[in-house]
């Protein structure tokens, strides 16, 4: 348990309490900073607000980051992305991909969400949820556009031999 003061109030927090507070929630869009909790990226202010019940106006992103890194969560800054296609303009004679770094990055980003519906843009997972309606509702609520909506397959077999008439 770590005791910390946020916005003049004292809280006893531990990683389990943070993970419990996020259960059933969906991460909001990442603007710049994020923390990794239970294999997902979350805006630090969203996390700290959910854990403490404080209004987000009561603390800054940096205070939230600091509080969460003290609890052992990884914090990072999102790379700037454009809205172009994941692999961008294509060379006239592409090299045999066998699997490009971008593809590997997307696969790694999808790994925590095997079995879930995801909305993806570039090599970034915007949101993951148990149903497509939750994903679409999240996109509408946050005015986001995805490049692809699908359920991350559990296995090679899940995407093989699917051809009915």
């Amino acid at each position, binding site marked *: 348990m770590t005791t910390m003061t946020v916005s003049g109030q004292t809280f006893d927090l531990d990683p389990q309490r943070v993970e419990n507070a996020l259960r059933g929630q969906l991460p909001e869009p990442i603007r710049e900073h994020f923390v990794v909790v239970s294999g997902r990226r979350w805006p630090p202010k969203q996390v700290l607000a959910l854990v403490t019940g404080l209004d987000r106006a009561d603390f800054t992103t940096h205070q939230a980051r600091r509080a969460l890194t003290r609890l052992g969560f990884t914090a990072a800054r999102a790379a700037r992305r454009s809205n172009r*296609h994941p692999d961008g303009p294509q060379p006239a004679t592409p090299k045999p991909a066998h699997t490009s770094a971008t593809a590997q990055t997307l696969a790694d980003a999808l790994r925590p969400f095997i079995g879930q519906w995801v909305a993806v843009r570039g090599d970034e997972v915007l949101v993951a949820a148990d149903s497509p309606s939750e994903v679409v509702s999240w996109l509408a609520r946050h005015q986001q556009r995805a490049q692809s909506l699908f359920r991350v397959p559990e296995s090679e077999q899940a995407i093989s031999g699917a051809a009915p008439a």
Partner: protein
Amino acid sequence: MRIPFRALPAASGGILTPRPVVDIALEGLASAPIGCLLDSGALRTRMSAELAPLAGIELTGALTERIYVRGIETAGALARVSLALTDGTDEFSWEAPVWFCDPWPHPFGLAGLEGFLHHFIVTIRAYDEYLDIEPHPHAHGT
């Protein structure tokens, strides 16, 4: 347009063999194009029936058929819908029949002959892990 194959994680670590997946936007659900596995052996284009109401597509009274997908019996309901494919630069749109299936055990939709392949010239570069897709000059669409 050129579309790289989709790399997917393997539950045991590493990645699955990348697959040809095209992202097809349903009219009414442009914010979330549906990932569809390109399936040259399938006659129909199929998607989960869960997606139809999200795009405002009415399936009540639609023609239905029962099929087996991955050993599971499913009911497909037919709707003729407006579809679009984009890579962020070019956009192709067309109207086509799509079968919305309930239940739908597949992680992706299936882009088959009707609904997709009949509208395009598709070059599959499996070794290089990408597709080249151009609208067929005789197909209807823009």
